[in-house]
């Protein structure tokens, strides 16, 4: 780990500790941006990174920077391809405009030398009108070409940006929960907005100017070498240190700009969390600490930006000074050559006139190169996400049974959370050995839920119940073993079809900014009578309060609308799961936020509703268990018993411990337990 990077600023607004946490799970990206930059997009980086395991991260890149930049930008090709003709046309216009601009002084000179001088004393004014017309024509043409350049380039520039933004969004939606658990939201957002905006500006301005300026410089120096001979070559020699400086500059600048973009993403994450967690911050009065923490982070970004400006300043100084000092030396040499008679004064004038024309683009080069490098980092960051493989993908040939009975079977299911390296480690060293063995959340689950049956899943907090049920609609994939529906591995269904069969209600009920109707009918089958589904679902979930909202079921709720209480949200989430008319219903403690009376009403309705639907319900309370035909006890990552509530209550000690509030856990003796109490359950509370 480099010691001089500003370190990960904890995004936890509560603590003011700004120590550099060098432990592994830090999100902060970009400590070691050099390597990222080398590996050009990260996807194919495996070989290059593993080839130098001991390399210090600050080591300058082994590849020539131009190659890496070109390689990265080449990845834009698929997005850029439709825009190429217009870009080429735009660039030609830009070059044409430059030529016109160069031509106007020539036309002036010609007019003055020719018609004007000739006409003095005579009365022939046609030549003068012609000259004026020429100047005017060139002027109009230049403006026209500039307008044409913009017209050609602006549309494709925005289209490339839009198509890339959309591709990112699609990919992000496709990626599984495991990915989203790892990536902070601000980092994704900054890629989608800032980075792509940067890219658009570069495409519609930077790229064109880079090409125009480079060609102007090349043509100019060519003319200088052609007309000035040794003088031109001497001037050209100045390019060598410039190239060296550019090389040094670009590796340094890339690292800094990567850091700044990553810090900007972290800052966005902090803002996001400070808003999402505003209630907690307010409840504990921690606004000040959150603010201080944010300030420290924002100040780090400021420092990085300052560092960037210093680097850019130094580079601009270097290239301006070198080219101008070379010109100064050429001036002396030119005077000497002119006296020696090796060069005419006219050539000397032409040489320097051209040099003045070249000076502008040379000076702008620093800015353009930095913009290009910035765009390159933006593209790197973009593809890092776009290249993340989807670990929960659709099968190549999805199975689609005609009729789904809804039998769910867990067969030797193991699961451990993908302790995959956090985003910044991915590019640091994908082959890094894992620090500790993975802890298995599920350690061989065997369970069958018969078609139409309601099965309750009971276990301690943190025993993996939510994890187990999220395997059914493939929110996560098993690490080993299989989950089958009607004998077909869930991984053999298309995700879309699978999630049509399986509907889920989460414990923390996410509602979207939409009307009650839209939220409830979110997963409802198309073609059904929506209204009927809606009413039925609202009744089952005892969510009739929706009718009393200001605009009834058409009231907008969620973040952009009316805020509802926890109990109300939970009932709508339940209604949503029911309205989907699934074959398999998965409920995660669906009644936790309901009061006793409502709970009772919901239970009665649900029991009716669930007849015929295979249901797996996570239960913490006997009242929820009452929904179920059978109960499965999840203990130490395994199903330790399956049976009816009454049987288990009589025979299973752990079950009694978990579900019964009447039994004193200490006095409950092990003699009547069907399964010996595990070490974990013996420790009270876990």
């Amino acid at each position, binding site marked *: 780990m480099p010691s001089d990077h500003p370190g990960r600023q*904890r995004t*936890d607004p*509560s*603590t003011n500790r700004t120590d550099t946490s060098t*432990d592994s799970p830090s999100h902060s990206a970009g400590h070691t941006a050099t390597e990222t930059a080398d590996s050009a997009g990260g996807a194919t980086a495996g070989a290059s990174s593993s080839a130098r395991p001991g390399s210090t991260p600050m080591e300058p890149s082994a590849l020539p920077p131009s190659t890496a930049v070109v390689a990265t930008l080449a990845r834009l090709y698929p997005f850029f391809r439709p825009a190429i003709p217009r870009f080429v046309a735009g660039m030609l216009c830009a070059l044409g405009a430059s030529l016109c601009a160069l031509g106007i002084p020539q036309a*002036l000179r010609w007019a*003055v030398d020719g018609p*004007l001088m000739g006409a*003095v004393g005579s009365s022939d004014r046609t030549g*003068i009108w012609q*000259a004026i017309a020429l100047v*005017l024509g060139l*002027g109009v043409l230049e403006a*026209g070409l500039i307008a044409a350049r913009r017209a050609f380039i*602006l*549309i494709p520039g*925005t289209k490339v940006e839009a198509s890339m933004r959309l591709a990112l*969004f*699609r990919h992000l*939606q496709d990626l599984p929960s495991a990915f989203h658990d*790892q*990536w902070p939201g601000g980092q994704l*957002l900054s890629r989608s*907005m800032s980075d792509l905006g940067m890219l658009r500006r570069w495409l*519609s301005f930077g790229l064109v100017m880079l090409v125009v300026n480079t060609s102007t410089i090349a043509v100019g120096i060519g003319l200088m070498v052609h007309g000035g001979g040794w003088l031109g070559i001497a001037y050209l020699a100045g390019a060598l240190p410039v190239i060296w400086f550019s090389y040094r500059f670009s590796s340094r600048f890339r690292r800094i700009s990567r850091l700044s973009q990553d810090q900007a993403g972290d800052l*966005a*994450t902090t*803002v996001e969390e400070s*808003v*999402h967690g505003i209630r907690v911050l307010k*409840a504990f009065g921690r606004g000040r600490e*959150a*603010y201080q923490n*944010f300030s420290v982070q924002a*100040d780090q970004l*400021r420092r990085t930006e300052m560092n960037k*400006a210093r680097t850019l300043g130094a580079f601009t*100084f270097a290239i*301006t000074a070198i080219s*101008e*000092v070379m*010109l100064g*030396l050429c*001036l002396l040499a030119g*005077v000497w050559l002119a*006296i020696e008679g090796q060069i005419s*004064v006219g050539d000397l*004038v032409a040489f*320097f006139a051209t040099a003045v024309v070249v000076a502008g683009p040379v000076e702008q080069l620093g800015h353009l190169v930095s913009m290009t490098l910035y765009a390159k980092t933006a593209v790197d960051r973009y593809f890092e996400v776009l290249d993340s493989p989807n670990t929960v993908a659709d099968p190549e040939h999805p199975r689609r049974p005609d009729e789904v009975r809804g039998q769910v079977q867990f067969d030797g299911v193991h699961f451990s959370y993908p302790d995959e390296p956090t985003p910044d480690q991915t590019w640091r060293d994908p082959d890094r050995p894992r620090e500790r063995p993975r802890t298995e959340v599920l350690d061989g689950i065997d369970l069958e839920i018969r078609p139409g049956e309601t099965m309750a899943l009971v276990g301690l*907090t943190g025993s993996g*119940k939510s994890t187990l049920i999220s395997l059914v609609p493939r929110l996560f994939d098993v690490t080993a073993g299989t989950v089958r529906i009607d004998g077909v591995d869930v991984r053999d269904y298309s995700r879309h079809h699978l*999630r049509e069969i399986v509907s889920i209600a989460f414990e*923390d009920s996410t509602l979207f900014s939409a009307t009650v109707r839209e939220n409830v009918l979110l997963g409802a089958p198309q073609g059904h009578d929506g209204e009927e589904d809606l009413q039925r679902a609202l009744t089952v979930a005892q969510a009739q309060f929706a009718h009393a909202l200001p605009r009834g079921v058409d009231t907008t709720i969620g973040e952009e609308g009316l805020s509802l209480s*926890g*109990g109300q949200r939970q009932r709508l989430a339940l209604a949503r799961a029911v309205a989907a008319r699934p074959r398999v219903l998965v409920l995660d403690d669906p009644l936790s936020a309901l009061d006793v*009376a409502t709970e009772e009403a919901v239970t009665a309705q649900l029991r009716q509703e669930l007849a015929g639907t295979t249901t797996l319900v996570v239960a*913490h309370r006997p009242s929820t268990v009452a929904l179920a035909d059978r109960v499965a006890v999840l203990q130490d990552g395994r199903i330790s018993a399956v049976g009816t509530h009454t049987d288990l*209550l009589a025979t299973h000690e752990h079950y009694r411990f978990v579900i019964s*509030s009447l039994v004193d856990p200490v006095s409950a003796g092990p003699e009547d337990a069907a399964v010996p109490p595990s070490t974990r359950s013996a420790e009270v509370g*876990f």
Partner: protein
Amino acid sequence: MRAVPVTPRGVTDEENSHLDRADSRLVRRRSLRLLGSLLAPLKRLFVLTVVLVVAAQAAKAAGPALIARAIDVGIPAAQDGSWGPAVLTGAVYVVTALVAGAATAGYIRLAARVSQSILLDLRQRVFRQTQRLSLEFHESYTSGRIISRQTADLDALKELLDSGITSLASGFLYMMFVGISLFLLDWQAGLVLLVAVIPVWLITRWFQKRSQVLYRISRVASARLIVNFVETMTGIRAVHAFRREDANNRTYADLTEEYRHNNARTMGLNGIYDPALQLTGNVTVAVAMAFGAFRVLDGQLEVGVLIATLLYTKRFFQPVGQMAMFYNSFQSAAAALEKISGLLEEVPTVRQAERPVPLPTASGHLRFEHVRFGYGKDSVVLPDLDLDVPAGQTVALVGQTGAGKSTVAKLVSRFYDVTGGRLLLDGVDLREVTMRDLRRAVVMVTQEAYLFSGTVRDNIALARPDADDAAIEAAARAVGAHDFITALPEGYDSDVNKRGGRVSAGQRQLISFARAFLADPAVLILDEATSSLDIPGERLVQRGLQTLLADRTAIIIAHRLSTVAIADRVLVMSEGRVVEDGAPEDLIGGTGRYAALHQAWQDSLV
């Protein structure tokens, strides 16, 4: 919604981009005021930057003159054997080149410092403001919009600041310099230039009007895009579970297209503005040429002077592209600043009194005096609440959803202010207590236990940032969270990841309970804080609560009557009124609602 001009408009009407003249002027002025206040402390730095820009420009402008001198004077002198002038000119050239380079490097750094200081200042102001604003505001203003203010809008300003200062200063000064030189050389040619200012002004007015609206639309469109993005990614599990990918893609594609289309329109506008200025310049050169050429023919003007005036006229328009770019990014930034200044203008509905009463050690005596409250103007949640909670009492609030239990909790923790009547803590109106003292005295734990990214330890320490590890561990032990925390891969140093990905809902609630324990307030409010706990967990919390609540005032809202059982007093609420009030044993013995509720709950237990 049209606000009266004298009242602060804030973020109302934020999404309206077609403002009438007066409103448009109002928000524009507001945003310029903000820019001015941001620039004010940096005045000297700003001036210094401009000075360096001038120095760099002057040094660069000297180059061609020196070359001319070397050729005109240096060569003849050297031919006469005197190398002095040539060498001197060459040396001066090298020195000016170095000066130009150094000044350029200098102003790049200084401009960055100005720009970054402004951005930091503004970021902090926006952050502080969002923390200051009441919950009422946050419930209608989405997180995505705040994020977009803090990111995309600031990016627009950054763009202006990064290139703006230098291009404005150098371009403007250059034009002034050239313009004055032209006047001195030939005032009649200068007049031509003055006339040319008229179309420039007209075009700029046109551009300003059009672009103002488009950039406003652009800010709104970008905010919508961000809001949608944030909402989708935050709720990604539900998106997956209910197969919303395609529908979301369509919505997002529309929003992207809207944003793209508007961007294209602003760029198109700029694509007319910039060439139009260029055209004006070029036409002016031709006019100046015509004007001068005939004067030359009539013998009124020297040819040399004509050439010079033409070159000056041409040069005058050289930085026009730069200026157009500046003006364009200025328009964009101004639109962004309009939104930001609107957010900054919002006044929190719950704010600290001007002369707050310090209450360093509260005992926790709560008193509701004819408290009236409703969300918004028309609703009444609490019509008239009178209640006295002596210090140290544990009160349980029971009742149906919508009975007003949570409202009571929110009023005590001052998330909202009462609309009528008074709410007193230790005899002091809550609105008079300093925020700091109030937050120390009153802590609320809600059902949604939000965890910030960071470690478990950090999340508990949120309650008391100066707490040492022992205190944090003690708090976790007290609520029965210690065991599961130590079982995590890295114990207290485990990263909870985004949105507490790795800990279950029940465990999240335990962590949030530990926070409350660590905060050690005089008044503790638990609003459905145990809903996700399992029975053993609840049992442990219960035990912890008995110690925790022993010597403090507590308001417990729970539908689990097991939690209520530890209360000294139960209040049954219905439609904003207290309908039953008494010790739990007494109420159970009666025939009221609580007795019925308790019976139902008893029956559900096994």
